[in-house]
């Protein structure tokens, strides 16, 4: 499994389109257990990323690409998800600086750093019904012999039954059980699109 600059760029453009398609679904989930803006926030951010990627066609390495994406998300998304996704990409950038492609240990190290970055920015951990519940099992499975799509799908199912204890959803306590966390869903969209290009 290998991730190249061109592949990550493709995955990000595909994510932008997928977010657009699932924008209402993300927003509706956030109305259920948040404040009804997650789809709107993610759409604003990934349309911003798409616009940047369309004008920047000379990104030399994964570090440059990830930094551009991270800074764009930080500046456009807002909310809780902006700093969290932004931090994830800035962490990719620190691990993958100067690299044109990554695999094995390097690939894992990037995701490990990104997941830790989300957790420390959000002061959160797995089990609190947030995007961390997707990023953490996904990252762990990069070193295991498992099918990544299945890991993501299973993590989504597992997250649904958790009770939220972090972020806006935590205000609703037990009532969050059985409702999908919007940030978990958007993370699954992004990570699945990355998995898609890893196979190439």
């Amino acid at each position, binding site marked *: 499994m290998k991730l190249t600059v061109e592949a990550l760029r493709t995955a990000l453009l595909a994510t932008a389109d997928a977010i657009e398609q699932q924008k*209402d679904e993300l*927003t*509706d989930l956030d*109305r259920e257990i*948040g*404040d*009804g*803006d997650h*789809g*709107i*926030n993610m759409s*604003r951010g990934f349309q911003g990323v798409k616009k940047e990627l369309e004008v920047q066609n000379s990104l030399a390495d994964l570090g440059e690409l990830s930094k551009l994406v991270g800074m764009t998300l*930080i*500046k*456009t*998304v*807002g*909310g*809780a*998800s*902006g*700093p*969290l996704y932004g931090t994830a990409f800035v962490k990719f950038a620190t691990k993958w600086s100067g690299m044109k492609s990554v695999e094995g240990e390097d690939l894992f190290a990037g995701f490990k750093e990104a997941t830790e970055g989300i957790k420390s*920015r*959000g002061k959160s951990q797995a089990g609190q019904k947030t995007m961390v519940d997707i990023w953490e099992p996904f990252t762990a499975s990069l070193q295991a012999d498992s099918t990544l799509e299945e890991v993501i799908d299973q993590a989504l199912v597992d997250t649904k039954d958790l009770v939220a204890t*972090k*972020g*806006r959803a*935590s*205000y*609703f306590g037990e009532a969050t059980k059985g409702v999908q966390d919007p940030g978990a869903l958007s993370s699954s969209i992004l990570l699945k699109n990355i998995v898609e290009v890893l196979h190439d």
Partner: protein
Amino acid sequence: MDKLMQDANRFVSDIVEGLVLAHPNQYEKVEGLNVVKRKGGAIAGKVGLVSGGGSGHEPAHAGYIGDGMLDAAVCGEVFTSPTPDMVLEGIKAADGGAGVLLVVKNYSGDVMNFDMAKDLAELEGIQVDTVVVNDDISIKNEEDRRGVAGTVFVHKIAGAAAASGKSLDEVKQVAGKVISRVRSMGMALSPCYMPESGKPGFELSDDEMWIGIGIHGEKGVERKAVAPVKDIAAQLVEHLTAEVADKRVAVMVNGMGGTPVSELYLTYKYVSELLEQKGYEIVRPYVGNYMTALEMHGFSITLLPVDEELLQYLDASSKAIGFLV
């Protein structure tokens, strides 16, 4: 749901531009961003005060800019925390060389974005400190309590302290004193509608209400049958007085944006009666729309136990359009 608007994508920038146009002697917009600052910029030698968060809470937060209160306000998208680069511009606009205090409400989005901005400002050599407001007692777990209408008292009191020449540490300390005392709780009869999606924050039938709502259109913690206002006020007062032991208080009855002022005054009548029956002495009453949630119909009650220091700052002059003294 109908809204007076031109285009959902311009909802916030149109609010900000309108506010600045309506108060040309008082406000200025930071070029290209939804950040508002006091006309003329920072005051040299005074601690700068910056607040902000999502929009939709008008007159918060920009309406609290003015001599005696805030120096800048950062206006995010509706109910969405602003981004760190915007907050940084707010900090720069407020920096008069004596440091800047950020008044942040306790939401993970606001806390993270303001934190990142603080780091960026410190890189530029500006001294920045933060207080986090968490006055909403409807959330049981204290760590998760939201910042709501009590934030206005923090703006007022910290603003007056800064205007009187206090240092960053001193302003932070008095802001912290307000935060440790102030408590709020709110209710809604009907939801508000997000400009972009056009959807209500929650569904509620005509004969129901939510107790324990926040200021972002989210549902409350307890869904109940609608009751006469005195009963509703009694429920909120009961919760609040259980947390406020000190009996000399400033009281705010705050409208959520869609409540007629008539209803706020009649609500206040019962709130004051109920408090007095419980032995509270209301030394400063405030009734009006201070921290709203678009067109939500409902109100919140805030209690702030006061001492001479806090009273003096509450009564100090303020030119902010949302809190004239």
